[in-house]
């Protein structure tokens, strides 16, 4: 978003610069109008980003953070991070967490949206409202509740699967933690997908379905040939927003497992290091900044892919 806005602002000033001298007053007025936005962007976007980058290039500890004098080490910190024995494991876990969250949130959200959109179901409105609950609850509440439900000794989930004769699962053990936090995160993301996809469905003209049914298209064909293609722009933006959000999820994971075992993602790793929480009480300002930058680049890459996909669609 940042790049887009500044890009449109820049040519404007250029145009004004080449225009006739008597329009000087107007030029200053334009600058005055643009200034607050530019100052805002510099102060709240560019400056923190630059600080983050600078921190990842200097070796900070608590002492140098306070008293200054952190030595410049170039890309050494990035090397440390990438060569960390668990780096690729954490990248893989982040990928699995993000991919699983996106796929299931989208599929379940879409199924529910189509279900509610078809209507003819008396309880649709209150039910739809109920599906928004995960969105409205503070994450500290839902996270704690999930942790409690997934209690390995007497949790309600284990009692439930016990009814079908299944053995109790140690949901938050080191090995299962990734699956468990993904389940909680999927639950958390369904309302977002439901709401956006539902409004996308409302934007599809009814005539298309009427024409299709007159031509004898089955509901299944209607879904594949009309609903999905018409939903494509909305789906794309839903998935992109979901991706950016999921990449940086810390809260739900942290509340449930403190990022232990397989539930460690790049975001929880960076968070733990930046505040000295989790296993190690040492603040690792520089390493955290480096991981933060890597996350930013990943999000940016997907943002660019989205823009490319959108362009292709428009052509």
């Amino acid at each position, binding site marked *: 978003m940042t790049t887009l806005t500044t890009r449109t602002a820049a040519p404007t000033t250029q145009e004004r610069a080449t225009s006739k001298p008597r329009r000087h007053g107007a030029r200053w007025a334009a600058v005055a109008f643009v200034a607050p936005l530019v100052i805002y962007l510099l102060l709240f976007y560019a400056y923190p980003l630059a600080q983050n980058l600078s921190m990842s290039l200097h070796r900070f500890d608590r002492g140098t953070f306070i008293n200054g004098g952190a030595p410049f080490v170039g890309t050494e910190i990035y090397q440390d991070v990438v060569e960390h024995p668990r780096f690729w494991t954490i990248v893989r876990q982040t990928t699995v967490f993000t991919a699983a969250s996106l796929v299931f949130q989208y599929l379940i959200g879409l199924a529910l949206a189509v279900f509610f959109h078809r209507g003819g179901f008396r309880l649709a409105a209150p039910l739809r409202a109920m599906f928004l609950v995960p969105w409205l609850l503070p994450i500290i509440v839902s996270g704690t509740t999930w942790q409690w439900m997934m209690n390995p000794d007497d949790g309600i989930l284990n009692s439930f699967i016990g009814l079908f004769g299944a053995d109790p699962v140690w949901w938050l053990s080191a090995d299962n933690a990734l699956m468990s936090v993904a389940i909680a995160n999927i639950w958390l993301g369904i309302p977002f997908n439901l709401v956006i996809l539902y409004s996308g469905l409302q934007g599809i003209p009814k005539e298309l379905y009427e024409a299709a049914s007159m031509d004898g298209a089955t509901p299944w064909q209607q879904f594949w040939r009309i609903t999905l293609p018409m939903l494509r722009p909305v789906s794309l933006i839903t998935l992109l927003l979901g991706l950016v959000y999921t990449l940086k999820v810390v809260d739900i994971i942290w509340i449930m497992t*403190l990022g232990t075992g397989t539930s460690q993602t790049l975001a929880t790793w960076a968070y733990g290091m930046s505040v000295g*929480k989790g296993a190690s009480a040492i603040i690792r300002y520089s390493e955290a900044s480096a991981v933060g930058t890597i996350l930013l680049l990943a999000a940016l890459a997907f943002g660019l892919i989205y823009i490319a996909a959108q362009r292709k669609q428009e052509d």
Partner: protein
Amino acid sequence: MTNKTMRRCLAAGAAVTMGALAACSGGTPEPGESGNASEGSTTAEIAFWDPYPQHTEGSAWDEHVKSCAPDGSTIVRTSAPQTDLFNQLTTAVKEGGAPDVVLLDNPMMPEAVGAEMLATAEQAGIDTTGVDENLIGPGVVDGTAYGVPFGSNALGLYYNVDLLAEAGVDPASITDWDSLTAAMEQVAADGGKGITFSGVTGEEGVFQFLPWFWGAGADLSDITSDEAVAAGQLLSDWIGEGLAPRSAATDNQSAAWDLFLTGEYAFAENGSWFASAAAEADFEVGVIPIPAKDGGVAPVPTGGEFAVAPIQTEDASDHYANASAVIACLTEGEAAFQTNETLGYLSAKPEVRADQADQSPLWEPWVSAVEGAQGRTTELGSEYVDVSASLSGAIQAAINAEGDQAAVEAAFQDAGGF
């Protein structure tokens, strides 16, 4: 500067930081070098930070702190959890707006001193006489004290009197690991459960693990030793045999205590700060010291905070005078007793501790635990945090191993890294 000091300074500077080098230059003093409580006077507002958000405004602790304001001053108290408090203090010192007094968790002391965040006790006019050596240990760096511990808590083994009696276990017979585990098995055979403890990732879980670690004869300088593995195996077996809950991997000490209060568990490894809560439980609760592997009492880590004065850049002497007055009030005379009773701590001074034990039978079993406690950072100094992080990873892995010996061994041998 003589040649000798010069050489010493260069060596120290090379070894430590730029700051140490600058401190040796002798010309303009470092910000932290200036100011002395004896040259300042107390100000109208005194900022006081502590890690007890559970003691809200108007609580006994809150009132007690505020009653320690010198004449003409008011104390403004702010609370945040341990780590957050330390991080906020870091920023505050950096920005030059640190509070007058902070209560800092004892294992954080070496790092705070290393980062030049604290004034020396001498500078801030903090009296450290009469405090037990094992308790002040974490606050002494290179022979200089940086604050004073007002009290200490310790870990012990709470037990459910009724459950043990029903299972026919005599608490006095629990003197080593084998007899402890046997007692749990006996209660389990009777339909009860064994023990609750906190194995949560981070310092809290390590704090709870150290009595077993030290009790096995392990040493923090080598956490890969056979003794260390034995301690991990003990917890791992409890989980594997169902004597301890799997949720120990995520339970903090409060959660572990709540589990014990359900009345289903025979034992709880927990802190002296729950002593008064234990007296009010629905069942009768007793306490025994944590046994060492082959008998005797295991050393427990010292718990509790230091009262410290952060380094000030402006009006340092006045801030230190504030710290001196408030800390003296909290740690000396009649109020020292009150400070510890309000927090559920035992005083760091033997005579006050004796008073506490005299007045309440609750404290009797805890006195020896506090007196035999070891500082976590006393041996390793600021390196402790790294060791603790590795140990935390190993504890988590051991709990997850559910008794699997190879996995426990690997957990301790692979421990390390951030």
